[in-house]
């Protein structure tokens, strides 16, 4: 029997044993991406929706031929969208592409330099998508009020950033993440900002339900090894959260008894 009696992560009624979600961007090739996916043990992977390259070699495999939608949960994103309209259109194309698949990652960006979410457009897009029957996992800022509003709209998971997308700066405002967690009744998944394994552990130790990352793995010197590190980091952070950490003290507290010394 395992010591860890954790429940699975449940998103839109589907159980996931892994609390790590990875991306498919910035990898050297599909094979490296697949190896990282296997090493990470993630069951969900994000993809982008883009124009077909008309000049493309017909024999070249496409991403979904290498990373199978039968084996993994494909999470189409709306990366690159700056308006609710573009994001909704992208989700509808994704649903068609994936035979009616309803789970999407909504992100509506506000600015190319920060890639910070445009919260007003995100809220508008979330309303439309939920009404249209999508299961929306939504990327947002770490504002607790906005996170709650997105949950009220009916998003199936709220995904605040830890730091800007691709920055690798870690969880910059753990106190906001804690406030979001305190009020949440849907999974809270830190999306963006993780740079290395300890960042993922910190997110999980705070009590997050999962972590989504792309660049931290894809841009590591050895992406497959980093994927393995992230698997362990998410698991150990989760176990530490469930175990309940000791309180922080300003001064020392001896680990060996004072009684019985012979000197």
């Amino acid at each position, binding site marked *: 029997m395992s010591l860890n009696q954790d429940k699975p992560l449940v998103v839109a009624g589907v159980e996931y044993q892994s609390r790590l979600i990875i*991306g*498919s*961007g*910035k*990898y050297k090739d*599909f094979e490296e*991406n697949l190896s990282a996916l296997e090493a990470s043990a993630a069951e969900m992977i*994000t*993809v*982008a*929706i*883009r*124009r*077909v390259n*008309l000049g493309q070699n*017909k024999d070249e495999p*496409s*991403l*979904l*031929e290498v990373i199978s939608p039968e084996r993994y949960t*494909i999470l*189409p*994103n709306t*990366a690159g969208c700056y308006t609710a309209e573009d994001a909704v*259109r992208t989700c*509808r*194309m*994704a649903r*068609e*592409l*994936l035979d009616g698949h309803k789970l999407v990652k909504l992100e509506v960006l506000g600015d190319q330099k920060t890639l910070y979410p445009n919260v007003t457009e995100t809220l508008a897009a979330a309303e439309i998508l939920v009404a249209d029957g999508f299961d929306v996992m939504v990327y947002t800022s770490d504002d607790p009020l906005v996170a709650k509003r997105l949950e009220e709209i009916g998003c199936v998971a709220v995904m605040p950033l830890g730091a800007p*997308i*691709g920055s690798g700066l870690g969880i910059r405002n753990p106190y906001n993440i804690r406030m979001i967690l305190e009020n949440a009744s849907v999974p809270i998944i830190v999306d963006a900002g993780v740079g290395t394994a300890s960042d993922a552990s910190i997110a999980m130790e705070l009590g997050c339900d999962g972590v989504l*990352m*792309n*660049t931290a793995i*894809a841009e590591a010197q050895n992406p497959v090894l980093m994927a393995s590190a992230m698997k362990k980091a998410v698991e150990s952070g989760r176990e530490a959260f469930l175990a309940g950490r000791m309180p922080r003290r300003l001064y020392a507290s001896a680990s060996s008894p004072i009684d019985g010394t012979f000197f």
Partner: protein
Amino acid sequence: MTMEISVNGKQHKFEQDMSLMDLLHALALTEGRIAVEVNGEIVPRSQFAAQQINHQDKIEIVQAIGGG
């Protein structure tokens, strides 16, 4: 008669009277997972053969690629 249509932002000339399925054949895009919009409206896969392509149609053909 030829017609001019836009496919993924680029102008293409084709003989008139073609279906979306014919167009996808002409572009060698019949394999693999794609989704298609004609003038902003998604055309379900089951309608590819029935969907007529007309002069000045704007067609978008997308696929899933790597992204975070």
